[in-house]
């Protein structure tokens, strides 16, 4: 019996010391970055002992919540404007802002045969609905509109556009087949160097403005060492490797 008791005691002691050092970081994360963030949070917890509590949603909603006292310490936005705006209003620390990922826009269909040549698929118009993220709200939506402008297809395709409230919903419209085509984030349909399902065309980056996703330390997190540690971790190779694996560039 005795050895077991000693082990239990040692473990309890170890857990107690560990808990004393471990802190929690509450972060707000853009919906498109959900999957990579979960992996990064796990890796970060293993490497540092700090725990990450993440909320996933749209940058616009987080902006309103942060303005009204939401307890977030870091924002990983889907754009560069929202962090800049928060910094301007004194709710975030401007000098901590940096680009943690650059998004890639793809034209995607659940149907593996549908997209052979992306521009041709768009021009031929053999589809009923094309899902895009709301261009007023989501950077992926704005990039999708710019791509359509590039091909001079806005007027022709406007009646067939259905707009998702964010990029996750846009994917849902296309993934359920209700829209045959969708402009989604590469990160949603791509794992480890290959498409998970369907067919896709990667939109060349010069057809639209950059989809630059910025992170920033919020005022509430300025005294939390774990928050600063997480920001550093996001710039490190472990995180960047995960980020790239999900189809972002950095």
């Amino acid at each position, binding site marked *: 019996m005795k050895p077991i008791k000693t082990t239990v005691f040692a473990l309890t002691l170890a857990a107690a010391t560990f808990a004393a050092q471990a802190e929690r970081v509450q972060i707000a994360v853009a919906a498109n970055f959900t999957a990579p963030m979960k992996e990064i949070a796990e890796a970060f917890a293993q490497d540092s002992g700090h725990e990450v509590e993440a909320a996933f949603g749209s940058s616009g909603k987080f902006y309103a919540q942060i303005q009204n006292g939401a307890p977030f310490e870091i924002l990983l936005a889907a754009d560069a404007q929202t962090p800049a705006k928060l910094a301007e209003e004194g709710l975030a620390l401007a000098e901590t802002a940096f680009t943690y990922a650059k998004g890639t826009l793809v034209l995607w269909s659940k149907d593996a045969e549908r997209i052979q040549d992306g521009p041709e698929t768009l021009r031929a118009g053999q589809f009923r609905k094309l899902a895009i993220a709301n261009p007023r709200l989501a950077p992926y939506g704005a990039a999708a509109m710019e791509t359509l402008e590039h091909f001079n297809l806005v007027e022709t395709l406007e009646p067939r556009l259905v707009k*998702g409230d964010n990029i996750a919903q846009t994917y849902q419209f296309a993934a359920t087949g*209700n829209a045959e085509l969708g402009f989604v984030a590469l990160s949603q349909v791509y794992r480890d160097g290959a498409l998970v399902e369907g067919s896709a065309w990667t939109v060349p980056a010069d057809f639209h403005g950059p989809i630059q996703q910025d992170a920033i330390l919020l005022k509430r997190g300025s005294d939390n060492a774990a928050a600063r540690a997480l920001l550093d971790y996001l710039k490190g190779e472990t995180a960047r490797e995960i980020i790239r694996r999900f189809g972002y560039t950095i």
Partner: protein
Amino acid sequence: MGFSDADLQAIWLTLRLASLVTVLLLLIGTPIAWWLARTRSAWKGPVGALVALPLVLPPTVLGFYLLLAMGPNGPVGQLTESLGLGLLPFTFWGLVVASVFYSMPFVVQPIQNAIEALGERPLEAAATLRAGPWDRFLTVVVPLARPGFLTAAILGFAHTVGEFGVVLMIGGNIPGETRVVSVQIYDYVEAMDYGQAHWLAASLVIFSFLVLLVLYSLNHRQALR
């Protein structure tokens, strides 16, 4: 500031949707309520529970299943396609169908309660006077259960105006087709355009308050009689 053209379009669309849904719900909901109020069948429990489901389910659940069911691989989607109607998501009629499900309990339950409260006696009396089933329904049930029908119509209308989650899931935000007031407000808030959001949101608060005020005042008067 005031309403923009897009706002007016959304308001008009919302009113059109809510009116149509209310009429449809009175037509569909009344027989269901009648049956629920008078049946002794073992199916009363399951049917009643099914009708009440939208009261407890988050709208996203309803919206998600409607999106799947009405999509190209869903049973409803395959039916509408084989009938040559195309697919329902992202259309005005898709919203109508969704809202009928979503607002059903708000129409069925008041009517059901009103009919249950009548009891058997007025109907039996009418039957002895040789009133046929239709006659009994139109000249006895409808006038006596009027407060129930009124409550049902107002709640059905107001609840459809206030619908959001389901529309967001199956609407696709198309101006003049599926972009209702609640979605328009959400867009303003998300785009950080709080001024415009306030205009529409405050109007909706006032509108909803007035609707409920009318409802409760009418019911109060009825109760005093």
